[in-house]
Every structure is written in structure tokens, then in C-alpha cells.
């Protein structure tokens, strides 16, 4: 394993009420919160909801800077949203620089829409920050459980997700080794134009696929050998169980969200 620890996704290990919260409750509350954000029409209310981010970060014992970092991949889209609104909304003129006119409404809209987008991403990131991928798939399986009644392969899909997540680090390490082995015999993965580079990946991808298929085969065999028989009647090592704290969070959270949305409408 090369003594290397791979951080998967953006899970931030800590002991906090938010980490301990039932992942299904987290998913449902996030869903409600994200939906609520789309109902808010007032910048002030939106900004007030934004204050929840540092509060949740404190509750989750995740550094605020770590949470904000989740916005990085979206920075471009956020800025684009902001500037398009600032520059192309008609209204009361604030300032003019050559052909560019900034309006007050534009500034308001720009702030509002980029805030909305940013908050949706930030709130969803709290789920992945405080929930391990395995817990998350468990929660998804449990929430979609009723679909089993109409013969949807919920358990199988959840199992596939878990297995896929489990093997990402393994395959990463393997890819690294194969890459080094091919480099040792003269492969060049770094230089050349795009077609040459794509072609240079063949010596990496073929061995990686071969080994992934072999692993899949061995895993299937090992599961069968241990009597794995799928979802029906299977018990779990970690059962998701709603505690009273979880129920309190769920209803408290829903009430708070309903209040904010209602308040937003009233204003």
C-alpha cells in the first residue's frame, strides 16, 4: 500500500453531532434546504440563510476554510453568473466604464444568483463532508427501499456503488504502479500532442482493465463462496436506526426551513 493514505471524496473525519446524525436525515434535510433556497426571493433572507454555513461548520467541527474550498471547482461558474447579471441587467446606472454599464439591480441580481448557487453547493457539501461514502450508499438504499416493491434493483445498485467506491483507491495505487513500470521501459506519459498522449495511455489502461476484470471475477467468486445471496433477508453489520435525536433534527430542521421560506414570502 506504500503507506499512503488516500483521501476519498471530501469526507472530513471528526466527531460531531452532524457526523453522528443519521445519513438519511442529512440527505432529506439537505434536499429540503436546497429546495427552500430556490423559493427564497429576497437577498436579505438569502444572506441570513448564508449565515448557516459558518454555524453548520462549527457544529460539524470542520474548518470553515475547508468547507469554502468545496466551491473552488465552481468558482468560474459563480463569477460568470455574477458578472453576466452585473453587466447585462438594465436599471438605475451606478457607474460607466466605456461600453460597460453597471446598474444597481444588476449588482443585486448578480449577488443574489451567485449566492443562491454557492449556497446550494455548500449545503450539499455538508453531506459529503460529514458522511462516509459507505454510509451514504446505505442511506440511499434505505430511502429508495420502497422501490423494491416494484422490483427495482435498489440493493444491487447500492452494492455496486459501495464496491465501486471501495475499489477507487485500490485501482489508483495499481495505476500508479503500472505507470511506473511502463515508464521504466521507456513509456512517456507527459509529453507530445493530444493524440500522442491519448495513445500513450494504452499501455496503462489495458493492464488496468485486465486487472479490474480479474479483481471483479475474484470478488464475485469470494462473495459466492461466502454465501452472499443478495438483498432479500440479508442482515447488516451497521443497521441504520433513527434515534430520537435524529427525529428531533429532522422535524426541527424542517420546521426551521418552513419558517424561513414562509418568512421570505411574507416580506
Amino acid at each position, binding site marked *: 500500500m*506504500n*503507506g*499512503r*493514505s488516500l483521501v476519498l471524496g471530501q469526507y472530513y473525519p471528526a466527531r460531531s453531532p452532524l457526523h453522528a446524525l443519521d445519513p438519511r436525515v442529512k440527505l432529506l434535510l439537505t434536499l429540503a434546504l436546497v429546495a427552500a433556497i430556490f423559493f427564497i426571493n429576497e437577498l436579505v433572507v438569502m444572506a441570513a440563510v448564508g449565515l448557516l454555513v459558518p454555524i453548520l461548520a462549527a457544529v460539524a467541527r470542520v474548518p470553515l476554510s475547508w468547507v469554502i474550498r468545496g466551491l473552488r471547482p465552481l468558482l468560474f461558474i459563480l463569477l460568470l453568473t455574477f458578472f453576466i447579471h452585473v453587466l447585462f441587467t438594465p436599471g438605475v446606472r451606478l457607474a460607466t466604464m466605456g461600453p460597460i454599464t453597471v446598474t444597481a439591480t444588476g449588482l443585486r441580481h448578480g449577488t443574489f444568483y451567485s449566492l443562491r448557487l454557492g449556497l446550494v453547493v455548500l449545503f450539499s457539501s455538508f453531506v459529503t463532508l460529514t458522511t462516509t461514502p459507505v454510509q451514504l450508499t446505505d442511506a440511499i438504499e434505505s430511502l429508495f427501499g420502497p422501490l423494491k416493491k416494484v422490483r427495482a434493483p435498489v440493493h444491487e445498485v447500492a452494492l455496486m456503488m459501495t464496491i465501486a467506491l471501495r475499489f477507487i483507491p485500490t485501482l489508483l495505487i*495499481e495505476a500508479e*504502479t*503500472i505507470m*511506473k*513500470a*511502463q*515508464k*521504466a*521501459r*521507456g*513509456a*512517456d506519459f507527459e509529453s507530445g500532442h493530444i493524440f500522442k498522449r491519448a495513445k500513450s495511455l*494504452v*499501455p496503462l489502461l*489495458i*493492464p488496468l482493465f*485486465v*486487472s479490474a476484470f480479474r479483481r471483479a471475477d475474484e470478488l464475485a467468486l469470494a462473495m459466492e463462496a461466502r454465501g452472499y445471496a443478495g438483498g432479500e433477508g440479508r442482515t447488516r453489520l451497521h443497521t441504520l436506526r433513527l434515534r430520537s435525536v435524529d427525529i428531533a433534527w429532522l422535524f426541527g430542521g424542517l420546521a426551521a426551513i418552513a419558517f424561513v421560506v414562509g418568512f421570505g414570502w411574507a416580506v
Partner: protein
Amino acid sequence: MLVELEAVGYTYLPRSEAAAQALANVSFTVRAGEFIALIGPTGSGKSTLVQIMAGLVKPTSGRVIFEGEDIWLEPGRLPVRRRLVGLIFQEPEKQLFEMTVEDDVAFWPRNAGIGAEAVPEMVRAALEAVGLDYASYKERSPFTLSGGEMRRAAIAGVLVMGSRVLILDEPAVGLDARGRVDLADKIRALNQTGTTIVMVSHDMDEVAELADRVIMLAQGCVVFDGQPREAFKQTELLAGIGLEAPQVARIAARLDRHGLLSGRLPLTPAELEQDILAAFGKATA
């Protein structure tokens, strides 16, 4: 001086909480023609060390010198310099990818820009060095070979580089007894025809049979560097890192307690035979 390591250190994920030191202050020189066995328990840093020796991993401290040239001073020349040291990874059959054995072995010559007319001869020589008949194997898909044949084809893919130093990271793992003996013979033959060998091994009998120098690694540090006979006298050092002297040496040590044997520590069955016969006053035929 083919390869020199000067105070080489390696730390995984430096400057982070998970930082882990894999190697510390490792220095030694590989001289032409040597057969070095690199031994040490799992996690002692052997695999990292051989990747550094092959110029694939940059040490976090210290220098790696190929024929007098610090290889990390001019990284642009690395792909060319790497030819000096061929590295055969653990389970090298995992790196096979071409449609035919010939194409796979020809990977290096074609990348290195060697003229197309010279390639088949190089491939033939490499395959025959590992005991695979060129004519009957060249057209076959590497994925239809047996495990042992795959291993050999993959080794040929490194041998074809004609490296002056060949590093093998546990080459015999997973082979049957005959495959092991066979492979050991091939490696010995390579050494006798002038290739310098560095071999990582957990099989002390194999080390005793083949190596003329042993470097012992424990927790990222070199704890012994010398002749095998000296290495296997360090019983406390060996026990401390969970290794055992070769079986022959252990038998000799027990016989020695009864005053039966004395003098040199025999390492191979043939040496033990000589010593026992000598103890009974008989000369070896």
C-alpha cells in the same frame, strides 16, 4: 561506480499530518558485475528504494548518481538515463498490454527510436534469455500464456533494454518450485555475462545461493552491507527484523554446537556437504 546513492531519504506526503518516512540516509554504491541481494522485512522500504535506484521516484533528500551524473539535476535527460537501470517490478506480468508477445517486448526499442530492422533480433535475444522460444511465442497473445510464461515475457520486456544494472523486486513470488530454480538460473546466467544484479528477496536460501553482497534494510535504514556469509552470522540482527538465516546455515549452526563443524559458515548444500565430509576426515570427490 554504476549507481551511487548518497544520503537518500524518502518521505511520503511530506509536510502533512500523514507524513511517513520510508527511507532515511541510505548510502551505498553498486559496482559493475556485483550480485546484490536486498533483504528486509515487509515495510522496510525495499520497494521504494529500488524505484529510487531506477530513477522512477525522486528522493525527498539526497542524491542518486548514475555513472557519475546526478540524475535529478537534469530531469529532461531522465528517460534516456533510465536505460542504465532496468527495473522488474513485483508481478511484472501485470504490465503486459500488447496483442502479441513480440510487440510487448518491442515496446522499449520502438519507444527508444531503434531502427525497425534491429528490433526483431533484440526481441529474439531477450525472449531467449528468459527461455522462451522466439519463433513459437512471438505471435501469441501475452494473455493466453501460463502464469510462469507471462512472468518471463514481462521480464524479457525489460531485458530488451540491455540495461547494465538489472533490479528485480521479488522475481520468484508466486512461481512453482521448478519455475523458481529456472528463473534463478537465468538470473545467474545474466550476472555471469556481465549484468549487474540487484535482487529483492525474502527467500534466504535463494540469497545464499546467488548473491555476493547483501544489503539489509530495516525501517528505512541500511543495517548491514557486506558478504552473505557475514550477513547470516548476524543472528541477533536477523532475528530482530524477523528474518532467518538460510536453512543450511541454521543446520550448520546446530552441528557447530556439538563441536562438529567449525570455521566458515556454509551457505549452500554443497558447502555443507564439504564441511561435513571434512569433519569426518573425508575429502569431497
